[in-house]
């Protein structure tokens, strides 16, 4: 198998007979030579990385390797940081999202994000979910909004737990529930891509397991990019893995391949725990 074929190959769609025909697809997001500078200091170096639809792409690497910074390029969250500069091209549906014509506000409604620490708004559970649909004018009336709230909470696996307490503040939930609330909040805007920045790092193992199940479920509908510190988590939830080190993309490929037969020495050292 040569490299070109591998780039265009979506492993999420293999194994299932019906999807075989779609095995070769174009990437949902295609990054070309992306670099990020913070106040002139380069944090990410010429990363080219394709991200495929209906699959989970994990970004792994030691702390400070630029994986979170790179993730924030995909919905232009780096715009909100003073002194941050992004170069290179990121194509989504054939459009370079780094070009000045693209409105980051609209882009972010298509690319949702879940953060390291659960960050529900200081509003009720209902209003947390309804916030996105309201500001983007996705609904006509209350019934429609109720429906979106319920659907989003169901997809995030939280509906059964909160359906009787929608008026309570989102902050009254447990950490794991809050993180699922944040996922539901992201889903409610009907994004195409969901970015997750170490979504389980502040959660206990049980809550982590629930989120991982949820990610696996969401993969059927969305394109997911997840940054994680845990290699086990990357192995469990992702179909493709990219290994970052010191701001460079060292290696990417099918998760199985990265974890069983990495091509690069640095990748092997990292996943076998020799550094990082």
């Amino acid at each position, binding site marked *: 198998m040569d490299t070109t074929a591998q780039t265009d190959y979506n492993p999420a769609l293999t194994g299932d007979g019906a999807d075989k025909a779609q095995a070769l697809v174009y990437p949902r997001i295609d990054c070309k030579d992306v670099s990020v500078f913070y106040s002139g200091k380069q944090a990410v170096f010429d990363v080219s990385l394709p991200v495929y639809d209906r699959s989970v792409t994990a970004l792994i690497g030691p702390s400070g390797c630029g994986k979170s910074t790179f993730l924030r390029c995909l919905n232009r*969250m780096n715009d909100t940081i003073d002194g941050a500069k992004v170069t290179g091209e990121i194509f989504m549906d054939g459009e370079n999202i780094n070009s000045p014509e693209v409105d980051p506000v609209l882009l*972010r409604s298509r690319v949702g994000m879940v*953060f390291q*620490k659960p*960050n529900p708004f*200081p509003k009720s559970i209902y209003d947390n979910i309804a*916030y*996105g649909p309201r*500001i983007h004018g996705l609904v006509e009336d209350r019934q429609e909004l109720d429906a979106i709230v319920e659907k989003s909470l169901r997809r995030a696996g939280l509906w059964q737990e909160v359906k009787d307490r929608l008026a309570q503040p989102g902050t009254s939930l447990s950490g794991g529930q809050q993180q699922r609330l944040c996922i539901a909040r*992201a889903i409610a805007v009907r994004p195409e891509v969901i970015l997750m920045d170490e979504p389980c790092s502040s959660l206990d193992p049980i809550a982590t397991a629930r989120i991982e199940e949820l990610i696996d479920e969401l993969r059927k509908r969305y394109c997911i990019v997840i940054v994680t510190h845990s290699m086990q988590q990357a192995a469990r939830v992702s179909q493709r893995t990219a290994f970052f080190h010191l701001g460079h993309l060292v290696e990417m490929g099918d998760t199985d391949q990265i974890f069983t037969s990495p091509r690069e020495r640095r990748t092997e050292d990292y996943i076998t725990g020799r550094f990082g």
Partner: protein
Amino acid sequence: MVQQLGQLPMGWLLTALLVFVVTTGFSVGRIRAERYLVSGGHKFHSRGNYHGYYVAMWGLLPTLLIAAVYVLFSQTAVFGLLNSELPEGFHTLSKAELQSYLEAVAGAAKTGGYAGADRIFATVTSRFLELSGSLKAATLAAMILAAIGGISYARRKVAPDFRARLKVERGAEAFLFLCAAIAIATTVGIVASLLYESLRFFAQVPVTDFLFGTRWNAQTSAEFGALPLFFGTFMIALIAMFVAAPIGLFAAIYLSEYASVRTRRYMKPLLEMLAGIPTVVYGFFALLVIAPGVRAAALGINSLLINIGVTSEPFLAAQPTSALAAGLVMGVMVIPFVSSLSDDVINAVPQTLRDAAFAMGATKSETIKQIILPAALPGIVASMLLAVSRAIGETMIVVMAAGQRARISFDPSTDLTTITVQIVALLTGETQFDSPKTLSAFALGLVLFLVTLGFNLIALRVVQRYREKYE
């Protein structure tokens, strides 16, 4: 000899003595502890320094007490003694006259320039010097004895198993407690004296007359209806808040959300400088610049209204001092109270909430209006209430630019008077401390205090309720 002692500079002497006691005590304790160590090789519970501090503490405590008593009561004591020796002729003097005579004596004694004065004055002064000289000598002697006593008592205690560190720590704690207690005691004392004098006032003037009466004329006739003063105070504070609340809040939003780090670094201290301008400067600015402007504008409106035939006589009062002028300038003065605190509160809203809103595709203004301001609201309200308290208590601007006439009028171009202005008016000039006129100032002060306290309590409640809700 005794007379020369009377000219001793006690401030310096007391300080020097106290410093000497502390250093001596410390050295005595420490040397004693170390001698134990060298001679017997004992294992000490506390390190040498703590024994030093302990002994110093015991030396300082009694000396400091004596010094404090001296500083507080020496003048009264000497005056009392002197008073009892004064010849018959002095007893016809009133209390205040006698006091000022004695103070003149004390002043002359300090400079020594009484040689050329009349014979009686010179005699009284030299007697004053004798008395205060012996008092000073006695005090210094007592302090030295007390220091020796304290230090030798504590020195005997120094021993390997003596827990000097614990004692010193307890002493330090007591000192810190004392500092906190002084602040509280001062407040309690002030409130108590306000209450006491107010009660004396209300014994002469009924509370209801004071609170609900609409005629205030304390200076000439005894009319103590303070309602016009309350009205004036709130009217001017309200005008001030109309200026300060929006400008302060919007400035805070700009500083915390829009300004670059660089701009913010320069702009915030500049804004806070507004709070550093002396209020008297604001006062004459209000009187000389704003008040004439307000008057001109009011006159313009009057003639306009008459010209177009809405009214036949002047509609606005257009006074040379006015509530509007004082209120506008006061508003400018309290802007930094609103903006600085609100800016801190807005900055304290976690960055994760901003990230969350931006990642949902919220615009900057949506994020500010729907996420940040609601989260920061209690702090913003608290900053407003603080500004109101400040505006109500403000004195200089209103003294200069608001006027003296007590009345209830919604015309902003007319002159009003406030609680603070009247307190100043009541207590300046010739005053007698037991007339209802003077006592009414205490009653006004009490009202001012209670209102400010009320605002602070409300601010606290708001912040607490918010905490219960979101944390």
